[in-house]
């Protein structure tokens, strides 16, 4: 009985405890293991390093590569150190276009034109100049970069305007059938430390891709061409930000004529990225590309026709160096010195080096060998010297009076410029034209230019020297006196 009582007491004691407990709690919490990332096992991805070495390149002293810095280019000069260093190793000079000279002038003498992330549009004249430059064997390299946009912040609307470098680049590239997309490529699976650092491992067989096994680009636009050639193709895990479509993108393309190279990235040119994968070898190939162009020089390149440092000036037999000619010659010498060419007067052709020949239309024995390749033909009228003509290939038959002709040819590494005038009086005028450093006042057809340097036909007689022939002056008849006086009316 006592036990029952104790039991009841215990039950009664426990009952409210259990009741309250069960009112609130229907079970006991079970400790459990919660997995967290193994942070200690995470590693920093390392860049792939290549052992590929570039072949030693030939030295090409005297060549100049122009780097554009006049079109809102989104880089600083120190960032192209790898390029300028590689060019210097080959004895090539790098010039930066800051607008001091016109682009057309620069392109007269440079071997290659490098444009990096331009954000200012090229003018129509500039586009045409570049097109002509490329057509004549000049090399054009355009490097763009999706991280090199130009930002403009509108303080009134708080809007930010973004100008991509592809607009300006495509403006230049469209004649060469190359288009750079305003996108960036990305790869989340196989990349170089970051999704935007894309690796390329599939290469087309070109000189620019010789020996390459892997290239790493650090944010790149995709580059497209139909008639040209893609340098390398991305894998199936590479996507374009523009479409989020994958596979088969190129980030560099070569034009059909092989003179224009467009690349979607610029960062790979800079340390330390230029040392990752086979980037250094690729940069070396690009530098070779810039210098391997075969530039065709013609008269439009004047005064940048000479590359030997010294040009010999050879007056032919009929040309007498007198005071009339010294002035223009001095100007010409000054012009050539500005392009690092010294002018030396010689009595006979030294047989080597660059040469400027001065002569008249009446060919002398010493002039004939220089003229033969051009096929000029002189026609003389016996009775009237002023009707003499000259047949110039490409121009037809021209009256000689007041005419100056410039002829240019490259022979055995020599650059020979022949300046011909009709008379010894016209020759200083022709040299004056040359001394301007610009023969745009002449009609130019490849290696022949025809310039007006004197007076033709009716003014040929130089009337102010000969004197104006006096024309008979008819005497006016004397005023007849009026026969009939006017009557005066009162």
């Amino acid at each position: 009985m006592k036990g029952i009582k104790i039991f009841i007491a215990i039950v009664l004691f426990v009952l409210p405890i259990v009741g309250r407990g069960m009112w609130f709690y229907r079970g006991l919490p079970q400790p459990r293991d919660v997995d967290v990332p193994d942070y200690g096992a995470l590693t920093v991805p390392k860049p792939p390093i290549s052992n590929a070495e570039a072949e030693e390149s030939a030295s090409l002293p005297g060549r100049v590569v122009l780097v554009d810095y006049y079109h809102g280019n989104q880089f600083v000069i120190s960032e192209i150190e790898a390029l300028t260093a590689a060019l210097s190793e080959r004895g090539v000079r790098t010039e930066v276009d800051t607008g001091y000279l016109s682009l057309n002038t620069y392109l007269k003498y440079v071997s290659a034109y490098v444009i990096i992330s331009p954000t200012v549009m090229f003018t129509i004249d500039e586009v045409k100049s570049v097109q002509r430059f490329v057509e004549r064997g000049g090399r054009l390299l355009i490097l763009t970069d999706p991280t090199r946009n130009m930002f403009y912040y509108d303080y009134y609307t708080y809007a930010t305007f973004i100008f991509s470098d592809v607009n300006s680049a495509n403006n230049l590239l469209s004649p060469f059938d190359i288009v750079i997309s305003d996108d960036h490529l990305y790869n989340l699976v196989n990349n170089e430390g970051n999704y935007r650092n894309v690796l390329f491992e599939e290469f087309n067989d070109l000189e620019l891709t010789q020996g390459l096994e892997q290239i790493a680009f650090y944010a790149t636009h995709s580059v497209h061409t139909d008639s040209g050639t893609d340098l390398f193709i991305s894998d199936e895990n590479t996507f374009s930000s523009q479409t989020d479509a994958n596979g088969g993108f190129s980030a560099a393309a070569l034009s059909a004529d092989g003179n224009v190279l467009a690349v979607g990235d610029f960062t790979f040119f800079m340390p330390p990225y230029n040392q990752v994968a086979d980037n250094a070898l690729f940069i070396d190939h690009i530098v070779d590309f810039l210098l391997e162009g075969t530039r065709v020089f013609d008269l439009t390149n004047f005064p940048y026709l000479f590359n030997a440092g010294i040009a010999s000036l050879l007056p032919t037999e009929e040309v007498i160096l007198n005071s009339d000619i010294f002035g223009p010659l001095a100007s010409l010498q000054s012009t050539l010195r500005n392009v690092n060419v010294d002018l030396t007067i010689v009595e006979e052709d030294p047989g080597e080096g660059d040469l400027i020949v001065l002569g008249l239309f009446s060919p002398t024995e010493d002039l004939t060998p220089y003229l033969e390749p051009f096929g000029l033909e002189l026609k003389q009228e016996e009775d009237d010297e002023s009707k003499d003509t000259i047949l110039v290939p490409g121009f037809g038959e021209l009256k000689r009076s007041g005419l100056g002709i410039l002829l240019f040819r490259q022979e055995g590494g020599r650059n020979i410029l022949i300046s011909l005038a009709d008379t010894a009086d016209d020759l200083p005028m022709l040299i004056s034209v040359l001394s301007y450093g610009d023969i745009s006042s002449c009609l130019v057809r490849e290696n022949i230019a025809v310039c007006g340097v004197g007076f033709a036909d009716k003014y040929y007689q130089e009337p102010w020297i000969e004197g104006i022939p006096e024309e008979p002056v008819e005497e006016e008849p004397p005023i007849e006196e009026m026969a009939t006086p006017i009557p005066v009316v009162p």
Partner: protein
Amino acid sequence: MSEEKPNTTRRRVGNILLGIVLPLVAGILVAAFIPRPIIGVIYLNDAIYSYSARDMITQITYARDHPEVRAVVLVMDSPGGTVADSEAVYLELSKLRETKPVITSIGSMAASGGYYLSVGTDYIFAKPTSEVGNVGVIGYLPPAPMLYEDIVSTGPYKMWGSPRDTFLRQMEMIKQGFYQAVKLGRGDNLKIGPEVLLRGEIWPGSEALRLGLIDAIGTETEAIKKAAEMALVSHYQVADLRDLAGIESVYYYYPFYYTTEEGITTSYPAESGLYLLYIPPIPSEK
């Protein structure tokens, strides 16, 4: 006989008191010490940075140390924040989960570091249009090393922290940690691979549910109910852990976001560094 009756009655009453009422009262008194279960709520309506993280950790610690707090609901509306602070809160939440269920209820946003915390909980609710995801890291590269005449240091990166390239690669490592956290947290529920998840996209809640980034569409109330269900409690009370932990509602002025000279607060952090942060795009025109 008549004298015995009162004694017997008194004895019986005494027995009853001793045997029934006393144990019952004692039981009731003891039962009163059984606390009513609490579903603690932690609100995060801010970026995750030193101050907000410290407050959260205080609340988490309180929940862990107080047995009456049987579950925690994390009410989330955050674009994320700094890497270290996000990871610190994530690890504290993971520790709490070892003993108590933690449920997330996403309000308008659980992006980047906010989502990092979410995957460190047992169940995730979101609204149909909540912004969820943005898995990844964002950072400002340190400047290229340079020298000043009047500031000297003992190493090339003493002033800059790390080479720019190393910084980028470290960021990739942090991303992998984030991805692992998502994988561990979501397990088989996750329907997308890294090639999609790590694009850094933000998905609306309904899409996040389809992709397995969250568990259900639901409200904060449902989250609390779910927490109680998982904690095996009923008749619980819901309490703001901030109040329980005695965190004063002091407005800390901490310039986490960059403020322009005109006084406009941008969506960019004021300091350079690494972030698990969603930065909404600024209005722009091309």
